[in-house]
């Protein structure tokens, strides 16, 4: 007699915990043949707002960790994912990926995490500068993380796209709240389990499942969010988000090119950085630089 499988309940990932949506709403995730895969949480505005609080807290301490440490935590994510490859291949297949496609999606995700783990302690040297000012001052510009980032993940690469956003944000010292691909959200929640076991501080990565129509405007108008990313290719939604971003001048990025094709570049990390320039006088007895 065949064994009855234990089905998994997929919940949200907020503040290092796996709560159900406060709204009590769920929606059925269907496979390619119309079969039920799971009941997913339909995250609400309140779920999102609840996730900004731990994201803010976690960001400050994450940014103060050494770049070496951030690099190792990202690499740890890859180690954890590698060990659970089979599970992700299975889940992707449920959503209609062929075995080959599913394998590639997971392998690409792994490459992505390892690639950006390496950037965590390198982009600073590429994007910082010492500025040769024409006065007796030492002047330098460095990158600092933007802060709390909210993103809508690409629809077409449910795991790779998610890993990309996590990598880019975490490498640069930011925290992330991400709306998972609507087509294959259960993979994202399983990835939350990987995050949970990888030395990523609770609250640094928060994963929501639900619908962009009801959430994106709240993402963009929240007054304690520093940057929003739209990585899908609906220009109307993008405009709506850009418009709402003006309220607190949060940084807005339309990364629609990622939909269908994820490519790596440290300039994605750079987008989520602020440049800070510091001046300090240099004592030179003979110069005129001491005047005010």
């Amino acid at each position: 007699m065949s064994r009855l499988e234990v089905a998994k309940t997929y919940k949200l990932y907020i503040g290092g915990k796996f709560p159900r949506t406060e709204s009590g709403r769920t929606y059925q995730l269907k496979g390619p043949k119309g079969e039920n895969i799971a009941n997913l949480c339909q995250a609400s505005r309140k779920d999102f707002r609840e996730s900004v609080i731990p994201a803010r807290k976690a960001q400050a301490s994450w940014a103060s960790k050494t770049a070496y440490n951030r690099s190792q935590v990202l690499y740890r994510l890859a180690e954890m994912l590698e060990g659970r490859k089979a599970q992700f291949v299975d889940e992707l297949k449920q959503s209609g990926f062929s075995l080959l496609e599913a394998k590639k999606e997971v392998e690409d995700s792994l490459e992505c995490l390892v690639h950006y783990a390496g950037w965590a302690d390198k982009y600073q040297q590429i994007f910082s500068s010492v500025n040769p000012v024409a006065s007796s001052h030492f002047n330098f510009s460095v990158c600092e993380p933007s802060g709390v980032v909210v993103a809508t993940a690409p629809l077409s690469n449910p795991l790779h796209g998610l890993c990309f956003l996590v990598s880019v944000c975490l490498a640069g010292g930011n925290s992330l709240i991400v709306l998972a691909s609507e087509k294959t959200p259960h993979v994202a929640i399983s990835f939350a389990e990987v995050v949970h076991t990888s030395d990523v501080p609770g609250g640094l990565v928060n994963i929501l499942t639900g619908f962009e129509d009801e959430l994106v405007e709240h993402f963009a108008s929240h007054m304690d969010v520093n940057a929003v990313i739209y990585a899908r290719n609906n220009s109307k939604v993008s405009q709506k988000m850009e418009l709402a971003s003006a309220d607190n001048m949060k940084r807005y990025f339309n990364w629609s090119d990622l939909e269908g094709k994820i490519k790596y570049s440290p300039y994605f990390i750079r987008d989520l950085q602020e440049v800070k320039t510091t001046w300090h006088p240099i004592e030179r007895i003979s110069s005129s630089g001491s005047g005010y």
Partner: protein
Amino acid sequence: MSKKSKNLEPNTGWDFDPAPEKVPVEIKAQYDLFIDGKWVKATSKKFFNTINPATEEKLSEISEASEKDVDLAVKAAAKAFGSWSKLPGKERAKYIYRIARILQERAREFAVLETMDGGKPIRESRDVDVPLAAAHFFYHAGWADKLEYAFPGLKPKPIGVAGQIIPWNFPLLMAAWKIAPAIACGNTVVLKPAETTSLTALRLAEVFEEAGLPPGVVNIITGAGSTGAALVNHPGIQKIAFTGSTEVGKVIRRSVAGSGKKLTLELGGKAANIVFEDAAIDQAVEGIVNGIYFNQGHVCCAGSRLFVQESVREEVLQKLKFRMRSLILGDPLDKNTDVGAINSAEQLKTIQHYLSLGKKEGLEMYQNAGGTPKKGFWCQPTLFEDVAQSSVIAQEEIFGPVLAIQTFRTIDEVIQKANNTPYGLSAGVWTDKGSKIFNLTSELKAGVVWANTYNKFDPTSPFGGYKESGFGREGGIHGLAAYLNLEG
């Protein structure tokens, strides 16, 4: 105060002889628009007066560019873009070097004109605004043929036509900040100066003519808010750069959303200037004065919130007030003047509104004694003591010579208070301890941090804000990104 110590008191009985800057500057009765390398009449046929805010005398009449004029300017810039963007970088560089040199040669003329039109002391326009403007052109000229080295792995391409809107506090310098990187990167420009300070931007157009800059590469159109709005909303613009208030910045951002236009915004500020007990107090006091009274406080990065550690509050306040009393307010053209005229009647009204709000809150106000000239717009250097974090004086940008003083005990407290503002443009830190400086400079959410100095600017040094102070940087290698499409 005893009679003896009164003699040490500044500005009592030792008046300076007048020392006005005498270089004559010719100002035309009327100015047209500079479009496609020619001076053309505004189709609106409307003019508005520009006055000297120190005397209220009319200096000239400025054209009000209509939507149609904006369209002509954008078209001229779009036409010029074809050849300007294809010109080898080293050739573009030579035009821009020429502009820098001519500005240096005509520096005194520009300084006098800037002071007459804007009210700032000649000492500042002569020593800061004009030399820095020339330096901006000189620095960016050299980038024109080196852009591919600035962004490893990317191919930099010019964007197209840049619409640029600048404020009245540093009219020529802001024009240079905007135009120099734009044209060095191969873009063409339509620039609109602020309506109260158009004269130096128009004179800059004369410099472009003198330098032989091809027609249409830079177009200068004058007018007020509606002209600016027409420029922002023009479909032929690919890039907008705005310096001004956060309020207007938000309006611009909303109207640009979804258009694909690239945008950089340099907006308001309410900078914390923090003095620790171990600071060199005399130098800190100089820095406080320079931080808030430079350019009558019409500075977006002004150190308008002073945080003094409690243990040195008395000493700092006493020395600060003493130093304030030595500031000479008066004729901006006089070389001894420290504090010039407020830029406009409207701005003076805004400042006075805040002064009355501060008094209404019951705050202790200290203001230099001594009257102000009968004509013109003036405000004596002012400070408010023991201001609460919630006070409007500590929260809102006043854009005048008004300092809000708060005290603190611990580092954590002052970091928290300093960052408790929607703005994040600049900050200042005064301490003799290096590790404390680095702690503070990394914790303060501000784009520019001055440690043991204040209000320093340089074309090689990126400038721009965090949070609601805007986004993007101007100056340095980082500033170039605002004027390039960076293809992977």
